[in-house]
Each structure stands twice: as C-alpha cells, then as structure tokens.
C-alpha cells in the first residue's frame, strides 16, 4: 500500500481514554512484531517518546475513547494527517468502560474525586485551565468526532484480530474480519 522510498508504511498509534490494554495486545503479537517492523515505520506512539504527531501518516491506530478536550483536538489533528484511521479496541469503538461515567455529572465527579478526596483541591478554575484538559460531559466513541475508516472491536482486541486486520491492510486488501473476530468485549 505504500510508495515510500524505503517501501515502508508510516504507522502511528495514539492513546486516548483507555487503559493501554490495546497497545499491550498489539505488542502481544509476539515474534510477528519483527515481521511487522519490516513492513512499517512507527512514526508516533505513546510507547516511544515522540512529542508531536507527524505529517503524512499512512495508518493510525487510535486506542481509547474521546473523554476530554485534548482527545478532541488530537483526534482532529490525527485525522488531518492520516490516510487511514482505525478505531482500535472497544473504548475507541463504543466508549466502553470510560463511558460508564456518562450517567454522572462531570462537576460532581470532579468534586467527589478532587474536592472531597484527600489532599488539597485546586483553588480556582483558572489555575489549571491551561494545564489539565477539560473533561467532556459525555465520553464518546472516536467516530462521533472524526470519520473512522476501520473498526477493530474487542477489549482488548485479541492479538490474532490485530494481526489479521493489519496484515490485510498492509497487503492492500480490505479489512474484512470473520464474525468471531469482530465481537465487542
């Protein structure tokens, strides 16, 4: 699928509101990761310490739900700079566990955790307005913020699922997972 000089696909992974389990599952493809690295160049990932999402990415795997203002901004940036965006795992696909907070009010959650909890609560909103991202009132799946090309459900997606999807994609074919590989949960 690539026309790069080194023949490699530029792959990025991103991590929003999720537990990193999907990234663990990606690493869990075991020795096949060597085959993968022969095919792709990893240009951005939370596993490596790269500060800025690069331009001209071929495929981006996005783990996690959209839960705060940073996620919204990053998602839009990723969409602009990536040819193919994959909603990677149940949190990105459905909201999943982080979305369990959706029945609660955000200010009450913050009060419960920071105001009522141990330690000193932040005194004013301005104090952390520029530092801490603002929580969205509802945790939402990725496709409600940006168009998503491929959905890879699972909590986490099984390594076999990830491998099947990635190899199909890297070989330029459509990603058509069999029913047992596309269930939620």
């Amino acid at each position, binding site marked *: 699928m690539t026309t790069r000089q080194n023949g490699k696909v530029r792959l990025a992974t991103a991590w929003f509101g999720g537990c990193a389990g999907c990234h663990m599952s990606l690493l869990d493809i075991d020795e096949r990761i060597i085959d993968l690295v022969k095919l792709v160049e990893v240009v951005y990932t939370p596993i490596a310490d790269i500060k800025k999402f690069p331009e001209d990415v071929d495929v981006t795997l996005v783990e996690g739900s959209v839960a705060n203002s940073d996620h919204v901004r990053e998602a839009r940036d990723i969409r602009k700079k990536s040819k193919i965006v994959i*909603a990677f795992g*149940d949190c990105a*696909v*459905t*909201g*999943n*566990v982080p*979305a*369990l907070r*959706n*029945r609660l009010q955000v200010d009450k959650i913050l009060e419960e955790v920071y105001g009522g909890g141990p330690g000193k609560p932040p005194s004013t909103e301005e104090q952390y307005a520029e530092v801490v991202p603002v929580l969205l009132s*509802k945790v*939402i*799946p990725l*496709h*409600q913020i940006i168009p*998503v090309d491929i*959905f*890879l*459900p699972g*909590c986490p997606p099984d390594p076999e699922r990830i491998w099947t999807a990635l190899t199909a994609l890297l070989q330029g074919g459509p990603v058509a*997972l069999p*029913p*047992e590989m*596309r*269930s*939620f*949960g």
Partner: protein
Amino acid sequence: MPVVTLTINDKLVSAQSDKTVLEAARDAGFEIPTLCHLEGLTPRGGCRLCLVEVEGVPRLLASCVTQVQEGMVVRTETERLHNYRKMMVELLLAERNHVCAVCVMNGHCELQSLAAKLGVDHVRYDYLCPDLPVDASHERNTRDPNRCILCARCIRVCDEVEGAHCLDMMGRGIHCNIITGMNQEWGKARSCTACGKCVQVCPTGALFKKGSSVAEMEKQREFLIWILDGRDKKVWHWSR
C-alpha cells in the same frame, strides 16, 4: 393438521398450516436471527429481528407471529432486511449500557454474538447512557436493567411455565422496564419462587446468578423444552 406449501427464498417448503413462517423457514434450513423468540414460550414479535418480506404485503412481517399460508412467497435474506436488522441491533446497543467488556455474559451473550454475526462493528447512533439502578435484593439472582433488551422472555417463562407471574413490564417507550412483584424490590416480591427460570432464558446479562463475575455466567436453555415436553407430552429427554 393440513399441510400448506409456500416459497421461502425461491425454495418450495411444506409446513403444517398452524406453523409460523419462522418455524417453517428454520425447518427448511434457513437461518433467521431472533432475540425475543425462544422455543417453548409464546411468540411475542417484540424484537423485530425476524422480519421478513412477503410478496404482495407492503410492510415487513415478524415471521415469529406470522402463520404460514398456501402460496405465500417469503424472502428472509435481502439487503433491506439486513440493513434493518443491523439498525435494530445498533439501537438496542445504544438504548442501554451494554458494556460487553465488564458483563457477566461476555462471550455467551446472544446480543453480543448477533451483533458480530450481522457485522455491527460500531453503533451509528448516540448512546443514551441511562441511569438505571441494579436490583441485587434477591437472595440468589440479580437484575441489571442496563443490559436488558426488553425481550420479555423472563416475563413469559415466569407466567407461562413457572406460573408465578412475578415479573412484568412497566412504562412505555424509553421508560419501559422489567419489574418484579408489582414494582417492588425483587427480594421483597413474595410471588417469586426463586426458581431461576427467568435467569436461564435471559439472552443477555440482565438477569444473572448472584456472585457471577465477568464472562462467568452461562445459561442453560434446554431446560425449557425438557420441562414442557415432560409436562405436556409426557416425553422425558433423559439423555439430554
């Protein structure tokens, strides 16, 4: 019982005239997805997944409550039906809090497997995320309305097979909910015999054995036919 002949997906099928289109289609080897239907309980036509196209009828018909007729021409697998079925499963997933990853029925759930089968890999609608309290007051079982699809299998088995009619449905539309003992806590409902039939017929994790953790709950559906055949036909499936 007279026999009628109908056409299902271009195949001529014979069926007893009191059978439903769903029964005739399944007997002929055609798969039609269902959620509220369960062999042994009165058909309800509630989940609408078994909708089929019948030639000469402008609307779609729920095959579980449509009787076969001579000369009927039925289609069970068209693009229109597939799109509607997908849409229905997505709406079910959006209506309550179906979080498979932390559900007792993960891996054994009928809604989860049907979604995968129909190719529902994401939900196009906004999740409603309702705030529904879990009733854990019963000594043996728990009712979690967050995972309920309102198929009413539990209500029917409680009424028709156990004869207790402890379970019922209350409210309309989005406020619809399953209740126990005229909307008391389940643990206080004196009409409940604690037989657990409702738990076994529930297609999702809405009713489960107390103490089950993620993916631990598995349900036995065969018991229903075993009881009913024994009771009504005096046939006992000892080997099952």
